[in-house]
């Protein structure tokens, strides 16, 4: 957005500088790499399903037998115990074993479930950020009663027990579907948890954005734009919005992580993703029932969630340090760790 505004004399714009600062943060770069790997992992789901596991995420194998060398192994024993991890012994089939007495391939489910978890995390973060930016801009720019209405609404949402009300809305939509005006969503759709998560995480971004808009609206460049005859829309979206870009990027990244945790909690309890879809959260609740015999079934999806969330949080913090170097310098100067250098940035 701001890239085109680089002066002809400037060799490096603020974005390129920020990018270089980010690259110097080895930890953040490493975890960005991890996040990319996780994305590639879930994107490869159809490849693995078709060519290695030769089954789909919801295909059951209740009576099937695996031939490993001379040995014959049942995918599900007559007592209903699923097979454990086979790694590559069965040519990659049932790599992580079967998920339950239904005998579905855990690895395939992990990859497809990850798609659902990441999709919900990213899409709800997009919606949350969009809502938050629009509300924050309106409240911070117009102030007065607009700010009072938006601010109060966000305060109320903020003060609610989000998980509890999220569960209530989630289960209500999961049972009945949604119908508000022209929007109709069937009951089993993954758009239901997306809506729940987007609504309830909006205040966490909208409030800081509103604060920043309040400060920016006082700046001379806004006054100059108004003096040139710019209307409210142009001031909000043309002048103020570009200055929010770094805040938005950081919050968006961190929000994906939060929303994925929210989704996992909802799905774990059965108020999020509904069958036949599954996500890492639903996989944990299925696996948890077999914790003593097949502990990996509950632990592996949990590890995937943790790695993804950790990666996004560290990348988000790295972005914050890169995009707003002052915040870090200030903190460290306070702690007496480094002398504030380049404080004039």
């Amino acid at each position, binding site marked *: 957005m701001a890239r085109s505004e680089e002066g002809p004399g400037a060799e490096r714009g603020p974005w390129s500088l920020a990018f270089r600062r980010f690259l110097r943060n080895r930890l953040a770069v490493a975890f960005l790499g991890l996040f990319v790997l996780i994305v590639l992992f879930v994107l490869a789901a159809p490849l693995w399903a078709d060519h290695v596991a030769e089954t789909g995420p919801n295909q059951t194998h209740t009576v099937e037998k695996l031939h490993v060398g001379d040995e014959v192994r049942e995918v599900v024993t007559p007592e209903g115990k699923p097979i454990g991890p086979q790694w590559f012994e069965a040519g990659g089939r049932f790599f992580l074993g079967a998920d339950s007495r239904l005998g579905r391939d855990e690895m395939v489910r992990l990859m497809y479930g990850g798609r659902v978890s990441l999709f919900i995390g990213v899409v709800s973060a997009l919606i949350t950020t969009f809502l938050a930016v629009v509300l924050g801009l309106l409240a911070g720019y117009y102030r007065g009663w607009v700010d009072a209405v938006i601010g109060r609404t966000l305060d*109320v949402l903020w*003060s609610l*027990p989000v998980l509890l009300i999220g569960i*209530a809305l989630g289960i209500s939509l999961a049972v009945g579907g949604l119908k508000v005006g022209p929007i109709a969503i069937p*009951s089993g759709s993954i758009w239901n948890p997306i809506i729940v998560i987007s609504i309830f995480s909006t205040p966490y971004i909208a409030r800081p954005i509103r604060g920043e808009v309040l400060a920016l609206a006082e700046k001379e460049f806004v006054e100059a734009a108004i003096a040139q005859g710019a209307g409210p829309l142009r001031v909000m979206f043309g002048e103020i919005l570009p200055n929010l870009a770094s805040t938005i990027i950081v919050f968006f990244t961190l929000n994906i992580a939060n929303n994925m945790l929210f989704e996992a909690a909802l799905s774990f309890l059965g108020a999020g993703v509904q069958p036949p879809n599954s996500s890492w959260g639903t996989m944990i609740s299925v696996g948890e029932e077999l914790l003593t015999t097949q*502990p990996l079934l509950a632990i592996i999806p949990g590890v995937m*969630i943790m790695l993804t969330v950790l990666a996004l949080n560290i990348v988000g913090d790295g972005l914050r340090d890169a995009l707003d170097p002052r915040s870090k310098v200030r903190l460290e100067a306070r702690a007496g760790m480094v002398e504030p250098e380049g404080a004039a940035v």
Partner: protein
Amino acid sequence: MLRFVVRRLVGMAFVLFVVSVLVFLIFNVIPNSPPAQRLAGKNATPVLVKSIEEEWGFDESLPEQYATMMKKVFTGELISYSPRTPVDDRIKEGIPATLSLSIGAGIIWLFFGLLLGYFSAIRAGGWLDRVLTGVAIAGISIPVFLLAPVLIYFLTYKVEIFPNGGYVGLTEDPWEWLTHLILPWFTLAVLSIGFYSRVLRSNMLDVMNEDYVRTARAKGLSERQVMTRHVLRNSLIPIITLFGLDFGATIAGTAIITEVLYDIPGVGYYAAEAIAKVELPPIMGVTLYGAFFVVFVNGLVDIAYAYLDPRVRLGEAAR
């Protein structure tokens, strides 16, 4: 002070009203299917659906439906329909377990959070700070639904140190109560321990730059006295507010997952059971009571905060 309390109480009443309307909308208006059908449950007979429809007045106007619902919830008439059980009774049965879990976890996270945060701050930049920062970040990053299965598998099954889930009342057998709750407490507390230690650390680093800290040093107080009496004390006020808010949110939210994972028959377990059976009345009751509880706690915290820090109430009055 009185003016602040009155303002805050009026604000609370408003929020409570908004919450009740929100819950009403969530259950009875937004979803795209007949509300009586949803309330009745999965395998309801048409006769039951019909009687629920009349009982709840679903053919009347929305404000009347709202009034009926609130009356049902707050006079204890809320019933789950398959089988018919009063929701209130089940919630009351669950409260001791939920409180045991949440209060214990709260004490643990406050104690360890402050301990780690304090040592992290007074050694800011040193190796201890780095180690504690790592511990805190690890704690923040482990989701409850990973930590609990790992702890349960290794500490109750592989090595049988703790009992595998369940709950024993404090009055029945205090020792069993304790051993059953240790793992759930830590599971619930770990995230907040990490978070609180970070918050206290950064608060203390802020306070260390204040003039009165320099004054305290200049007048010859020992470093320890400066840290505990001046820096730590002044860093605690925001932590106390935060604790109030988080504690409310824990009881009415995060504790649900921990209760399910450890089979603790609390209010959250009841709600989760209702979700699994797709029974809406219990969820309605738990949500409303839970939300009211949280709003109430938040109000108390604000008032306590204003009492502790006069700047807050003066700021409010000046606005």
